[in-house]
Structure formats: C-alpha cells, structure tokens
C-alpha cells in the first residue's frame, strides 16, 4: 500500500507536462515544419511524441490513444488535408478521443480553414506563423485533464 499515501495540502499533486502528438499524415515527406514544431514544443516544456512520416488516420488515432496525448498537431504540405482530415477525426471519435485539442500546420489555403474548423481543428497555423504563436495557442488551449 505504498503508493496510497494521500498527498496533503503541502504536497500538491503534480500536474504533468502537456503531451503532444506531432503527426505527418499522407504521403508528404516534407518534415521541416513538423520537426521545428516538435523542438519548439519540447523547449516550451512539453512532451512531444513525433510519429514520423506516412501516417494513416488509423495510425494517428491509435498513437494518440496509447500515448494519452492532450494535443495533436497535424502537419501537411501536400494539399491532401481535405481528404485526410475528416477521416482522422472519424477515427479519433471512434477511439473516444473527443477531448483532444487538434491543431494543424502547413500549406492550407485560407478558403479551406473554415471547413477544417468545422470538423474540429482548433487552429490552423499557415506559412510564416511565428513559432511562439503556435506554442502559446497550445499552452493556453490544451485541455487540463488532471482536474478530475
């Protein structure tokens, strides 16, 4: 019964760092932005799980589930977001991951942003977005799931 010591007021429960999954869906191999973002989030004190390339919607959902992430960052430059993002959200919902914050980065034309937000993307960081803008958004909007 060693782990059952109830923490008292002076030993507050630690709220862990924000966990982020950075995923590259589709066939697009351009990972410069994804890697820069992964490093920036790490340097902002977050724990970043980088999936590597060529992730299917099913793989992304499974990784997000197993790693119990608070945030998913999708990086895509190929233009396939319109086809892939709805399928990713379908998989996330099927896995019960409704409370995860999903953001996207890459070359996503302005006219597509509204449609992506409608399916659940919280923010789209287009080309030239300062990294600190994305980092701040994630820090301020990541769900705090330790408040149970």
């Amino acid at each position, binding site marked *: *019964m*060693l*782990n*059952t*010591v*109830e*923490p*008292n007021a*002076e*030993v507050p*429960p*630690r*709220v*862990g*760092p924000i*966990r982020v999954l950075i995923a590259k869906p589709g066939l697009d191999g351009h990972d410069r932005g994804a890697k820069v973002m*992964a*490093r920036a*989030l*790490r*340097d*902002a*004190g*977050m*724990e*970043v*799980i*980088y*999936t*590597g390339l060529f992730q299917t919607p*099913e*793989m992304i959902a*499974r*990784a997000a*589930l*197993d*790693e*119990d992430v608070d945030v998913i960052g999708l990086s895509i430059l190929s233009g396939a977001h319109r086809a892939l993002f709805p399928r990713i959200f379908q998989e996330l919902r099927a*896995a*019960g991951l409704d409370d995860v914050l999903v953001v996207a980065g890459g070359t996503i034309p302005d006219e597509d942003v509204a449609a992506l937000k409608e399916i659940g993307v919280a923010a789209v960081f287009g080309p030239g977005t300062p990294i600190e803008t994305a980092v701040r958004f994630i820090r301020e909007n990541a769900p705090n*799931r*330790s408040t*149970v």
Partner: protein
Amino acid sequence: MNDRSTVLQQLIEQFERGERRALARLLSLVENEHPVGLSAMAALYRRTGHAEVVGVTGPPGAGKSTLTNALIRAWRTRGRSVGVLAVDPSSSLTGGATLGDRIRMLENWADDRVYIRSMATRGQMGGLSTAVGASIHLLDAFGFDTVCVETVGVGQDEVDIAEVADTVLLLQVPGLGDSIQTIKAGILEIADILVVNKADAAGAAEVVRDLRNMLRLGEQRAWVPPIVETVATEFTGIDNLVSQIERHQAFLSASGEGAARLARRLRAEVARLARRQLTAHIDAVIASNAVDETLIQLETREIDPLSAARIVARIAADRLSESASVAG
C-alpha cells in the same frame, strides 16, 4: 471528492474490462502522481505479478528500437501479448522531451495485444523515473504477458533498469567507436544477456571477442550471460534471443535467483518511493515559512548549515508520519 471517486471507479472498471483508453489514462494519472492514479494503483496492484519484465538498454544508435520491434514480432508469434515502455530523457533545462519517435514506426501498431507508450524521465535524479516502476505494474496488471522497457544507455539508466526488469538485455554494436572499452564498471554485471546487434557489420566479431574476454575476467556467477548476435533489421538471431530470454526466466525460477531478485527489487522500490516521499516533504517544508526562523539563524550564523538541515529533516519527517497516519 465524490466526482473523483466516480472517475476512479469508472477507470478501474474499464481497466479491468481491458479497455486501452483506461490504461492510457491511468498511466498518465500515475505518472503525474494524481490522487486518482495513486488510488487506482492501490486497487490494481494485487493483479500484478504475472508479466515477465524485459529491459533493453544500450548506447544511442545501437538499434534498441529495431530490436524491440523484432522482439515484439517474435513474442507475438509465440502468442504473448506485449506492453512496451520507451523511456527517453527529459531536457534538464525545460523539462520538455521528444519521445518515442523511433518506436512509433513499428509494424505492430494495429495489433490490439501490443501497447506502446513513450515516457520521459522527467528530470529524476539517478536515472529512471519512479513512474517507470509504477507503469510496469499497470501494464502487468492489465494482463500483458511481457512488459518490455527500453531505455537509452546514458547516465544511470542502464544500471537502474536492473531494479525493474527480470531480464536485462545489454546491446552493443560495432562501429560506435570504442564503446566496449568505455563500458562503465558495473554495467556488465547487470546484463543477463549481451546482444551484439548489427552482427553482419564490420567489426562485429571483435565486439563479440571483447565481450567474451571481459566476461572471462569477471567473477564466476551461476548465470553466465550468453552473447547473442542479431541483425534486428532482418530479424536474424531474434528467435535465439527469445529462447535465451526464456532460458534466463527458467533459470530465475529454478535457481531461486528469481525470488531473491524480487525481494531485492521490492526493497529497492520501497526505498526509492520512500525517498521520494521524504524529498517531496522536504521540498514542501523548504518552500514554506516553517523554516523562516531557521534560515534567519543560519544567516546570522547562530547555527551552521548542517544543523539547519537536520531541523528541516526533522520537520519533514514529522509531517510525513502525520500524513501516513492519516492515510493509514
């Protein structure tokens, strides 16, 4: 508090039904030392004790993840379910970490009887985070036949892994300079199986020979670590490696070494957690105004630092026993 116990109850029920999401959530709650996590551990610990725990360690670039991948495939062919913890260091500066980048490439991502989880060391002194031990318990309790813990062999981690694993695989690889020469004292002693990966590369024979010589120089033990050559990218030597792991497991139970190790490990785990409890209380005391007077006396040189420290330790110990009696 009511909410919290409902959540706890739900998570435990889902966990016991084998729901991955509950496992994933509880791993986070335990790692974050959240009260729900701690209570869940108390409830679930009785389910542990069935998994074999295999540690995989070795220098960066030795192919640990590729080997783990190959092992997962071999275990799955033998019908064993596998839980993997991939542990990476946190940045000491920011606390952040990039994790699991390697292991996520694995082929078994869709297999429901394989679970892969990345963990950061979170700046724990002396290598593996205490949460690693707790996470192993959860994976064990969830019912995985094998729990595999992969750590980068830098700092203390490769020694610490012996404190959580039944069987420790130490990876070596040719072509990483003179890594054999730089194997730190004590590391060879914790290895139950020596794996020479990339055994088809130039210099592999020399690595095997050097390891053999080092083993000869060491003291005689009841278990002589076998040297297994693998090419993990091609799944060469993996069956042999799994057989050697099984042989080691059999040795552990037949020789009584397993029971002795378990006793040592439990003692070490208790010590680790107790230290952590104390440290947390000491930190809390130091941060509070309970020590203001002591510090003033220290500043005016009425007392010396060691005396001040003993005062702090005494207050912390008092608070700890108070909280323990409340919980008990």
